[in-house]
């Protein structure tokens, strides 16, 4: 079981991770986009950091809603509404919760993916962040259903997430700004897929610590 305190701690750690990796995200975006994914994510998570410090968090749903609303109003671009949608959908699944378990986490991931697919009118295989979210979630659900320990399930899910990012290098972008490059997008990993790996790593660690 993950407690509210662990969730708040995880969000703060995630903010640091995104801020530290902003240059790496810019570099990925420079190859197939406009070199600002790291800048936008850093601006958003700097704001998340200060908002979390100044907000009295009532429950886990409130924590994720705070992240979602902050990203919605500070990131912009395509990643802003998509990540905002993910965290707001997380929040819907754990409104009023003091704790979350792996089953709730699976529901949160499903809701987030459905929300992002709707908002971005996208799916797996378009060279987007979904190419990481979806295999991570599918692996987690399969491993869980097969009765694997949650430590093992989460580590296999992270392997699937990394593989998803590697897979994004092998396909032509059909959604987002990289799609304007056509075949020139081949060989480059998707920046949104890379930032999703960082987010899912933080969330996996949250359960490992629990």
């Amino acid at each position, binding site marked *: 079981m993950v407690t509210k305190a662990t969730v708040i701690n995880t969000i703060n750690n995630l903010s640091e991770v995104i801020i530290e990796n902003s240059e790496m995200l810019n570099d990925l975006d420079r190859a197939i*986009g406009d070199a600002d994914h790291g800048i936008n994510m850093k601006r958003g998570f700097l704001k998340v950091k200060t908002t979390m410090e100044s907000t009295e968090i009532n429950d886990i749903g409130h924590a994720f809603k705070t992240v979602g609303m902050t990203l919605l109003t500070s990131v912009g671009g395509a990643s802003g509404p998509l990540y905002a949608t993910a965290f707001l959908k997380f929040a819907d699944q754990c409104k009023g919760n003091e704790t979350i378990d792996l089953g709730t986490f699976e529901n949160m991931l499903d809701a987030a993916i459905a929300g992002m697919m709707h908002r971005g009118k996208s799916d797996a295989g378009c060279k987007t962040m979904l190419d990481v979210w979806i295999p991570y979630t599918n692996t987690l659900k399969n491993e869980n259903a097969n009765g694997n320990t949650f430590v093992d399930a989460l580590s296999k899910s992270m392997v699937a997430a990394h593989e998803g990012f590697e897979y994004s290098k092998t396909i032509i972008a059909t959604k987002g*700004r990289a*799609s304007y490059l056509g075949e020139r997008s081949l060989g480059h990993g998707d920046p949104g897929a890379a930032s999703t790996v960082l987010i899912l790593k933080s969330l996996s660690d949250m359960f490992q610590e629990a």
Partner: protein
Amino acid sequence: MKKIINQVENIVDEMLKGAVKAHPEDLKRVDGFNVLVRTNAPVKGRVALVSGGGSGHEPSHGGFVGMGMLSGAVAGEVFTSPTPDQVYEAIKAVDGGDGVLLVIKNYSGDIMNFEMAAELAEADGIKVGNVVVNDDVAVEDSLYTTGRRGIAGTVFVHKIAGAAAERGESLDEVVRIANKVNSNMRSMGMSLTPCTVPAAGKPGFEIPDDELEMGLGIHGEPGTHREKIKSANEIAKYLLEKILGDMPLEENTEVAVMVNGLGGTPLMEKYILNNAVYDYLNDKKLSIHKTMIGNYMTSLEMAGLSLTVLKLDDELKTLLNAPANTPAFKQF
């Protein structure tokens, strides 16, 4: 990076403050937001137009706020779509009760942020319509991809749909005319140099001195391909072949042409290109009704330009020729 700025994080705010101070008779800022609206907004009895996008495209979009064009413009961070709360504030500030047309360029981010804002406004009972501009022929069009980008042709949409709104047309009618402009125009751009997003501090791409980037968008993102530098006549021919290849025009068709600078190309070079464009179109027996030449939709300090051809009929011609009075475009 060398730029005339203060703190990078204050660029958009200070630019908007400077714009309002330069044009106090035209523009006012919505308090607390990166939104410029007409000083007399909201105007009753007229459909309002809201456009916007990332900053770095000046004079787009705030420069076109004024009589006969936009009612409001939303400025995001440099090359980054503005957030839904900012667009929502713009809609609320300009709606006079007859509805609002959102002029959106076809980028995933712009569409998502503007759609979310439209959903918020519609929940308040505001009528919202939109046009998604996708004039860039450099990108292959396909049902299965994001499709073509919106670039400088967006300014023709501001002008013509803005004139329709000024004339008192309904929202449905303004939406129809905006879409008609979009479907009757094609654009294509090229560049000689990259540009530097201030927060990034380094150029978006590197390009050798003797090469040009063909078919790029307006955010410093790479284009479709690179080639050796060529003459203005050859560049004009290449761009026009792409444009007219996609939108074949019969002899004696009347067109409007926009030669748009990306920020770092002098007017001299734009005139040289225009000279070649004029001769090429003349050879094809197309008649140029109006030429717009200048910096309308820029990419910071990038050297390069885009060319837009708009096919005209009587309806579009009348609206294109209607008066406009904005900081960046005046016509009497």
